[in-house]
Structures are given as structure tokens and as C-alpha cells.
């Protein structure tokens, strides 16, 4: 077994175990921590593929920004452990088989696609190539996506502040 394979297996095991743990944990903070573990394990997998830039960005954006917001909101709302209910009949008889079917389907498709793939040598300058794609070839869709996200944020703000336009009497 090459060291690369060993590292891959360890990281993959951490990623899968973390992902399963996200669902199994009852407290939202524990789920969030598991999700952070998954993100970091994924960054390790990117490192193994010699894409250092993607790995660093994976940690900065997902583990360091998005998940911090998740944890922040969970802490702010002081969310407690969620309560478990027994599965509804619908979920038991239709949901479980469907989920298993989906899993098999995904595993089959990914397996088939991987078999037909040949290993590619890593691009010499990943960062430069990526910036060329983002800021030259696809600059218009890229900027459009940014504006779309901005609109979504503004929309959320407007929705959140609806009804607070008239200040209450007596108060500030």
C-alpha cells in the first residue's frame, strides 16, 4: 500500500464517518462540528490531488466562513437538542427503500464513471489556470452569480425587516 493510498483511506474514512455523524448527532452544534470535520477531510483529499489552492479555499470558505455562520446562528438562537419522533408510516415504507435505492444508484453511477476515467496528471499551475477561467473565460457568468447572491441577501434583509418600518410608539 502506497502512503498516498493510506492517507486517502484515512481521510475518506474521516469524511464518511463525519458525514454520517452529522445526521446521527442530536445536538445542532455537534452536527455542525461533524460537518466541519468533513470539510477539513475533503480539503485533505484535495491536497492529495495536488490542488493546494482548492484545499486552502475549501477550508477558508467552507470551514472558516460558512460553518462559522452556522455555528454563530445556532449559538445565537441557543438551539437545544432536537427531539426524535418515531418514523411516520410513510417514511418507513416508502422513504427507507427509496433512500437505499438512491444510494445504490449513486454508488453504481459513480463507480461506473470512475472505471472509465484515466488518471490525469495535475495541472502545473492550478491557481493561475483557475483565475484565467474565473476572471477571463467565464467572467460574465461569474459576476452574474455574484449579483444573484447579492440580490438574495438584500431580499432576505427586506423580508426580515418587513413590518418594522413604522417605529413603535414610545420606544426607540
Amino acid at each position, binding site marked *: 500500500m502506497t502512503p498516498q493510498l493510506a492517507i486517502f483511506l484515512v481521510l475518506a474514512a474521516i469524511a464518511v464517518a463525519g458525514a454520517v455523524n452529522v445526521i446521527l448527532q442530536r*445536538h445542532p*452544534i*455537534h452536527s455542525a*462540528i461533524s460537518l*466541519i470535520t468533513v470539510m*477539513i477531510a475533503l*480539503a485533505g483529499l484535495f491536497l492529495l490531488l495536488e490542488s*493546494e*489552492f482548492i*484545499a*486552502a*479555499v475549501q*477550508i*477558508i470558505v467552507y*470551514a*472558516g*466562513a460558512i460553518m*462559522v*455562520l452556522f*455555528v*454563530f446562528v445556532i*449559538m*445565537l438562537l*441557543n438551539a437545544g437538542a432536537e427531539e426524535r419522533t418515531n418514523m411516520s408510516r410513510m417514511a418507513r415504507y416508502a422513504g427507507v427503500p427509496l433512500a437505499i435505492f438512491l444510494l445504490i444508484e449513486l454508488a453504481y453511477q459513480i463507480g461506473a464513471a470512475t472505471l472509465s476515467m484515466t488518471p490525469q496528471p495535475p495541472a502545473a499551475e492550478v*491557481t493561475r489556470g483557475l483565475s484565467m477561467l474565473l476572471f477571463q473565460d467565464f467572467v460574465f457568468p461569474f459576476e452574474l452569480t455574484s449579483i444573484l447572491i447579492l440580490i438574495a441577501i438584500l431580499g432576505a434583509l427586506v423580508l426580515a425587516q418587513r413590518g418594522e418600518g413604522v417605529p413603535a410608539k414610545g420606544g426607540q
Partner: protein
Amino acid sequence: MNETIAHSILLVSLVKVVVLLFLVLTAVAYLVWFERKVAAHIQGRWGPYRVGPHGLLQPLADGVKFLMKEDATPAGVDRFVYFAAPLLTMTLAISAIAMIPFGPASIHILGVATPLVVANINVGLLAILAITSIGVYGVALAGWSSNNKYSLLGGLRSSAQMISYELSLTLSVVGILLLAGTFNLSELIMRQDGFTWGFLPKWNLLNPTLPQILGFFCYFVAAVAETNRAPFDLAEAESELVAGYHTEYSSFKFAMFFLGEYASMITVACLASILFLGGWLSPFPPTPGLAWTRYIPAAALAIAGVVLIINGAGYLTAFGRIVLPGLGIALCALAFLVSRPSVIDSVQGPFWFLAKVLLVLFIYVWVRWTLPRFRYDQLMRFGWKFLFPVALLNVVLTSLAVVMRK
């Protein structure tokens, strides 16, 4: 054959990791002493004076105290998170230093030439930013898991603050990336080599294309906020929150937070000196008329040694009268060694690097004992409505300057 080389490289890396770990932990301990001394002298006091001559053994005493104190775990804490948070803070803060290059020269250990950096990776700067961005969790989770309202408020404040200031921190560095075009910290330093008009160093702070003065300002302010230090220490504002996120931590778990804070101070100062102050580059041009500047490291050591000898000879305690002159003689011997022609060139890099780091750390401490703490709304307004636009402006101006130069 190849395997033996690979093995010795692995061994050398391990040796470097151990040496760096030892150096960083010592530096952290004495940074606390340094901060207390500077603060005391700013306020017209003496600072630590009792444990060892000039309080030099104070860090040791503090360490023993932390180990001996009762380690109380309050009721109702979330045990796993409560124990993991201090560990996370300390580990992340220390591991970021592995990416810092301390000098240009290679040293020889076990017959392998190796640079003065543990991990010289292509995206070094991004890796450090990634590590600091995860560092939030230590504080946030400690506050949440402690089952204490003050801790929770401290953790909340700190995560909101770190999200806000991380943007400015990252944006303030973009200007330098635009000028240098690399993420590698050693290359970033090499791009700053040279002199404008023969005497002004081409450090990014004084870059001829566009001086990164705005960038340096934003970086420094955001870095102080990121390390949760005054005037941005709202996460542990003792006048409002007891001690904020580490209220419920005692003994060595508290010491871990302490170590983490000071280790990240060192990282931030190292990064400031690499990004803006030319890292290990000497501030003097290599002209024959200025060849004497090569003796500055030796002279600085010798002066420090002589001062210690003179001061130590008249010290109040007998212990001090032995230790201080002894230290002074050791420093003078080191100065003599450093001025030898065979060593003199290889100490230039580390000396200037450490001098710049020390300068930044001094400003850091100075700021803490000068400015009062921000109010929470002031903090947010300052971060989003002033610092962030200024950092953006710096990016726009630098991009314009780079394009015009082409």
C-alpha cells in the same frame, strides 16, 4: 539510496518541528513577560520583579502555577466540546508558525541542507489564512460549551467580530498578492528585494508601484481584532463579561487559551513583517560604503551584553548579581561568534526578521495599553463601514497602479 534520503529528510523535518516548537513555546512565555514589562513601564511601574532578576523567571513560575491549580469542570458543560476547544485554539495557533520562513540561508542538519522553514508550500499565505479562519471555533465553542451566560456572550461576540474582520484582513493582503503574483511566503519576500533611488527599500510598505500603507493599516487593525486583543477584546471584556469565553476554564486549559493568544500574536507579527516589511531583507543597500551594517547584529548583541553586565553588577539580590552578568557575558560571546566572517552572512536574515517581528510585537503591546476598548456597536460600525471600504479601496488602487505600470 533514494529511500535513505527520504528517511533523512523526514528525520530533519521532525528535528525542525521539535526545535521550532521549543522556540515558539519559549518565545510565547517570554512574550507574556515582555508585555507585562512594557505595560508596566508605560504606566510608570516596574512590572514583574520578584521571581528571578528583573522577573525573568516569572514565565516559569506562571507555568508551574497553571499546572498546579485545581482543574475544575463546571456542572452541565458539554464535555467533548469543552475539552476540545482549548486544545483546538492552542494547536491551530502554534501550527500556523510552521509556514513562516525565518531566513534565506539553508542550514545543514545530518548532512541535509534545509531551509529555515518547516513547511515551504506554494500557497503558504493561504494556508496561514485558512488556519486563522478555523481558529474562531476555539473561542466560539469554548463560550458555548461552558454552560455560562457570560461565556456564551463572549463566544458570540468573538465569532461575529472574527467573521467581520476576517474580510478586511484577507482584502488587505490582496494588494500585495497583486504586486507579487505569488502565494509563497519566501517568494513574497524575494519580490521585495531592491532599493528605490538607491536607498529606500522596496518593501511592500514602500512599494514603488503603490506603497501599501493603507493595506498595512487595514492588516494591522484587522489582525489585532482577529487575535481578540485590546481595543478589540470584547470576547473577554472583563468589565462586562467576567472573563468572557474562558470564564469557566481553569488550570492548564486556561493556559492553553493563553498560549494560543500569544502564539497567534507571534504569527500575525511574523506575517506583518513578511508581507509589508520585507521579511529577512536588510534595510541597508549592499553598497561597499555600507558594509559596516553587516556588523549591526553583533553590535546589538554586544551592547545588550554590556548593559546586562553593568546593570547586573549592582543588582539587589546575590542571585541577580551572578545571573545577569553571566547572561551578559554569554551575549558578548555570542556577539563575538556572530561577527566571525564565516557566520556573519548567515545571521543577517534571521536577525533582521526577528528585529522586525519584535518591532511589530512592541507596537501590538503598546496599542493594547494605550487605547480603550471599543463598544460593541462601534466595533461593528468600524469594521464594516470604515475598515472594509478602505481595504476595498486599497485593492482597487493597487490594481489600477499595477495595470498602469504594465
